[in-house]
């Protein structure tokens, strides 16, 4: 199979890039290993807080449905339930549908592989009933199954607040939130919101043991005030996310470690092109960010890909690049944990020359 652009990952970033590129006249193939498009955001029943100003207020699900509508209206080849297996010697990507493996030859490749939720270590974390908070959210919103009756959540952050709302709506009670950090390290605003919901939060605490007959029934937690036994049939881990970089690594893109971007992350230039020419990385795969950040990184990369394909002039490209970065800076400073300088920090100068020279 041959195409101008191959996009790996059909989440918000991949879909946004696909739309822009197809609208700009590029031939696009979009691969996703799931059986539907949309990525994690598809199951976000909460309002998306960080959309750029041009968007109206809507939930993640609504947003994604709209985006999928746009993709479906365009001539974009969608390969769902297809996974990228690896890379051929000539640089083509190998894709499988589970029955056969075939190459896709693309002039430009965009990695929109997203981020994965981090696990957390505690005795018993491997037992049934312990899952990521994202899995619990997905089970409720997409699969229409209640993952448990009473949850303990490990980790207090923005995502915890979002899913706590969902749990209360769906009658999943929350026995408590266990946070390793000291109270002073957690924003007051989050604590206030959790108090409103009357959910107990245990700071400076950790899970000491998970009890049950081969699945979660109780947990012993170690709090500053001593041990406490809690009844819960589900323990949800909300421990942050890390960019998914498997394919970037196989493509020999150089990576660096950056705590605020979520860990290992490919090095890229101001068009989100990696150290491997014509391979781009966008969305959470380029550093875990807010929803607005996902879309804007995609817009920036699409802008450069269109220029690379001679579908956009250098002048158009430059003007647009500048305004998009301005918007990204604004959005991320306001909504994501990313100090914007961190992105600039991983932008590789040699890559810049490569791209602009």
């Amino acid at each position, binding site marked *: 199979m041959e195409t101008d652009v191959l996009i790996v990952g059909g989440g918000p970033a991949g879909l946004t890039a696909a739309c822009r590129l197809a609208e700009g006249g590029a031939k696009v193939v979009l691969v996703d290993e799931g059986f539907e498009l949309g990525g994690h955001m598809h199951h976000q029943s909460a309002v998306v807080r960080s959309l750029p100003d041009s968007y109206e207020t809507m939930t993640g699900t609504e947003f994604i449905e709209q985006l999928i509508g746009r993709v479906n209206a365009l001539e974009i080849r969608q390969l769902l339930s297809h996974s990228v297996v*690896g*890379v*051929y*010697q000539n640089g083509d990507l190998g894709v499988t549908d589970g029955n056969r493996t075939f*190459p896709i030859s693309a002039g430009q490749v965009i990695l929109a592989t997203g981020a994965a939720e981090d696990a957390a270590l505690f005795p018993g974390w491997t037992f049934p009933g312990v899952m990521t908070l994202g899995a619990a959210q997905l089970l409720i919103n997409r699969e229409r199954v209640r993952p448990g009756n009473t949850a303990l959540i490990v980790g207090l952050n923005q995502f915890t607040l979002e899913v706590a709302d969902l749990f209360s709506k769906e009658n999943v009670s929350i026995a408590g939130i266990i946070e390793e950090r000291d109270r002073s390290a957690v924003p007051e605003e989050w604590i206030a919101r959790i108090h409103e919901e009357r959910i107990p939060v245990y700071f400076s605490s950790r899970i000491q043991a998970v009890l049950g007959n081969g699945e979660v029934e109780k947990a012993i937690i170690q709090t500053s005030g001593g041990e406490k036994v809690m009844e819960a049939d589900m323990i949800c881990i909300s421990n942050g996310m890390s960019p998914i970089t498997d394919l970037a690594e196989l493509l020999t893109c150089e990576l660096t470690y950056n705590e605020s971007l979520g860990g290992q992350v490919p090095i890229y230039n101001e068009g989100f092109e990696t150290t491997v020419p014509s391979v781009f990385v966008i969305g959470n795969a380029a550093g875990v960010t807010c929803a607005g950040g996902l879309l804007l990184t995609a817009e920036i990369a699409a802008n450069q890909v269109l220029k690379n394909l001679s579908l956009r002039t250098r002048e158009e490209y430059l003007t647009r690049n500048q305004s998009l970065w301005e918007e990204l800076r604004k959005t991320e400073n306001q909504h994501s944990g990313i100090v914007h300088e961190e992105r600039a920090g991983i932008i590789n100068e040699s890559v810049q020359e490569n791209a602009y020279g």
Partner: protein
Amino acid sequence: MSRQYDVVVIGSGVVGSSIAYHLSERKTKKVAVIDKGFILTGTSGSTQAWVWVHNKTPSWYGELSMYSAELYPTLKKRIGDVEYKRTGGIAPFFDEKDREHALRLAEMQEKVGIDVKVLTREELLEKEPFLSEKAAGATYSDIDGNVNPFRLVELYTKAAKKNGVDFSFYNPVTEIRRDKGYYQIRTEKEGVFTAKQIVLAGGVWTGELGRMLDITIPVKQVRGQILVTEPLEPFIQTTIAGVRQAENGEVLIGYSKEEVGYNRQTTLDVMQETAGMALDYFPVLAEANVVRCFSGVRVIPKDGLPILGQIPGMENAYVAVTHSGVTLSPLIGTLMTELVMDRETSLDLSKMSLSRFERSAAGELIV
């Protein structure tokens, strides 16, 4: 400040660590091993790990491999369980016309004492019921088997450490000089090591070590890619050339050769070919999941045969570099220890001398 040793072995792969272990068993010399990485970061950590004898040619090479394989059963008592299994080894052929070649091989190996049987299809399928019926026959020998290379190198190293050998990891050698009868080995991280005797056992990087001493050690790098399946119920009984089942049920598949220098990337091209080969051999593997693919860069001396012995014209400097390091490691450790300690060996090493390449360049015929 310089560190003083009687012997410094450069390289902690299966060959270097075996030499260090065997030297340390004498408990008379102070030995150090220096490695640019850690144990198993190189070829020894990325091998199919057959202990393979029966179709090694020329015959003297097969014979050497046989002697080494004979040392494996006692290794367990000396260094611990390296998970050596003498399973018998099978090299199948798919064309009946190849039987004639197989018979010639068997005849040739018999002369040096290697018992090779040529199996009919029925005999083959009796030994390996899941093998494809397309196989026409195979060569087979009881002597072949396999080992766990991770345990092997780990346990050589552990035993050597116990006997007082010092290991310096993540410490590339940058320069080797000879000064007043001693070797000065400059390293990147830990300064200079001084030794009376040195052994170059850098595997695939031995050529580079040779250059530090102004000698040519003609080795090439040949990449092999291997697929590994998820653990499966044991269904392969023997060690089959190209496909073997490890102790934990994983099946290791592959026999590819590419000369791409030190590049250890794997490629989907070769993975697909290898998967095809696996199904040709064992159609029952169709639904087995492939979990990973790894590649190793084999070191292959220019003529394919081991380079073992003293470096010509360079007193107290030795080289041990060979393909099939796993098979040959117990024997190489033994012979090199004899050479370094006693200056004579129980087997004649002259065929394996580095000097053969000079002679060959000068037009002398070597066999």
